[in-house]
């Protein structure tokens, strides 16, 4: 649990009065663009950086002034931070030795724990190798094995997937969730990748500029964002933001909007092309010209120029779309639109 956590580096406010409660056995994702302070939050939880103010509580203990090694947390670094001069087995064993385990537990017990951890991550064959002789994915798994060998209360992960290629990253997402279930562990995972957040998290916290924007289950944040930042950060392609003032009153068919609404957010999957003569029904309409289309195989993103901005609509792969330059009408259900005020806060 974090309460009023603040971190300043000189004049720079990196984390601003952040309060969060992370539950037991949660896969909690801190999501935000680079430089938003999420890694700093993680480092404060690990004890690598001291908070300027606020408290960090693990279980029932305030750990602010505890050494990293007394906090019972393990961290997976973005660069993995494997010891290059040690073998895989020695790397995994390090956390057991570090806590005076050499005296308390025997060599055999340690070897067993290392073997178990290596087995869970499929590293059995590689125990004798040095990190330099491993692929990126293997190094990442060694870093995970080193973190879990001690069975800590809490796992902290700092963008552990960002150094993997796209294909491996997709597979590792599933593996990580499996691992989390198997270990019955609490994970705090930092990433700037909304896909990772959406696919793995039980809850996510969206952060920007050191400020917490929203906490919730991934689909809740996606469907029901509290502000424009959370709305735009989740979803790819991102949500379309329309100025209410730009919409033509005669064609928008929106009906009454909540008071204070100045902007509307419409997700690309909620837009569809409407032909000129077909009845619009209850749809609100946007008129524009086609700028281009991006065929992805399984779907097509149609980019249309509406007023002064581009609007993206997701369409099934084989739907006919007008050629670039030709007029297009896009329609959406008013109930699918999200309303925001001048400051970007949600209006309901």
């Amino acid at each position, binding site marked *: 649990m974090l309460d009023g956590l603040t971190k300043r580096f000189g004049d720079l406010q990196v984390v601003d009065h952040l309060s969060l409660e992370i539950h037991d056995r949660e896969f909690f994702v801190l999501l935000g663009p680079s430089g938003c302070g999420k890694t700093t939050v993680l480092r404060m939880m690990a004890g690598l950086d001291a908070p300027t103010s606020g408290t960090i509580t693990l279980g029932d203990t305030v750990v602010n002034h505890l050494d990293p090694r007394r906090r019972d947390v393990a961290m997976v670094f973005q660069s993995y*931070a494997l010891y290059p001069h040690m073998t895989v087995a020695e790397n995994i064993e390090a956390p057991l*030795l570090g806590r005076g385990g050499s005296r308390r537990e025997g060599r055999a017990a340690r070897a067993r724990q290392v073997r178990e951890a290596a087995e869970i991550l499929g590293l059995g064959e590689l125990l004798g190798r*040095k990190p330099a002789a491993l692929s990126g994915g293997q190094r990442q798994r060694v870093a995970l094995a080193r973190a879990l060998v001690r069975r800590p209360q809490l796992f902290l992960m700092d963008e552990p997937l960002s150094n993997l290629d796209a294909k491996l990253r997709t597979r590792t997402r599933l593996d990580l969730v499996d691992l989390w279930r198997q270990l019955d562990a609490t994970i705090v995972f930092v990433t700037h990748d909304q896909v990772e957040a959406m696919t793995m998290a039980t809850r996510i916290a969206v952060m920007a500029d050191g400020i917490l924007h929203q906490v919730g289950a991934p689909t809740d944040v996606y469907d029901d964002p509290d502000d424009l930042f959370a709305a735009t950060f989740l979803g790819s392609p991102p949500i379309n933001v329309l100025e209410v003032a730009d919409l033509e009153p005669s064609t928008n068919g929106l009906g009454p909007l909540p008071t204070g609404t100045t902007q509307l957010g419409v997700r690309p999957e909620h837009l569809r092309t409407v032909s000129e003569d077909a009845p619009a029904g209850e749809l609100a309409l946007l008129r524009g010209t086609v700028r281009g289309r991006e065929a992805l195989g399984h779907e097509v993103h149609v980019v249309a120029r509406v007023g002064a901005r581009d609007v993206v609509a997701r369409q099934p792969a084989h739907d006919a779309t007008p050629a670039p330059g030709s007029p297009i009408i896009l329609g959406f259900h008013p109930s699918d639109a999200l309303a925001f005020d001048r400051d970007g806060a949600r209006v309901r």
Partner: protein
Amino acid sequence: MLLPTLVLLGVFAYFPLTRLVHMGLWRPNRFGTRETWVGPANFVEVLTGEDFRTGVWISARYVLLTVPIGLLLGLVLALAAHRRLKGIRVFQTVFSSTIASSAAVSAVVFYSLINPKIGRFGDVSWLSLADPDTALRGVALSSIWQNLGLTFVIVLAALQTVPDELLEAAALDGFGSVRRTTKVVLPLISPALAFLGVVLMVSAFQSFAQVELLTGGGPAGSTETLVFKIFERQSPGSISEGAVMSIGMFAITFVMTMVQLTLTSRKVHYGGR
């Protein structure tokens, strides 16, 4: 592309070496006007002779007196100065400053400190330059001081290549600062330490200026290192002996370097597999 290198090596390494062999095999008369063949027997005679052996022994003791202490001291200073503190640059500059001083400067400094007659610490008995049993220590001290800057700078540079994240990982793994140093930092900077070990050993084995300036080989020849003995054999009558000693020293230095590099390459981590 290789030509300049070959020319330089030829002029400054291979030619002098063959010249030395020649000088060892032919002995000039006293005036240097005629040479007589003395042959390989000259090598055997000189290399097994009393002078050569005491020279090697004194040089070896000098290496043992200077290298381990110098290396350890430089390492400790570098570890102490490798932190992010205000004003640490001042210390880093001070510690590395001896790099800018020559052997002559360091000898003069120590001459004024430990000379038995005028030195401030001239009466410290365990490094007295007047006593044959302790004079080598006094010379060694000045050499340690002079090399400290180099050791410090190289170790500090090596420390700066150790990623912060590794030390943070070690902290999370529960290693205290002592074990972080011995288990993570030292293995990672071991290439620099091995390099320093070789360089310091070779340079100590070859040191001359300090000896010449501080003791002139005395008292009673107790600080006559091998190079000093070679230096004394420049007259036409003895240059042949000096040449053989030089070749002997070259061989010893070569073997010493090889042995040390082989030993350390097994222990040293060069970031590879």
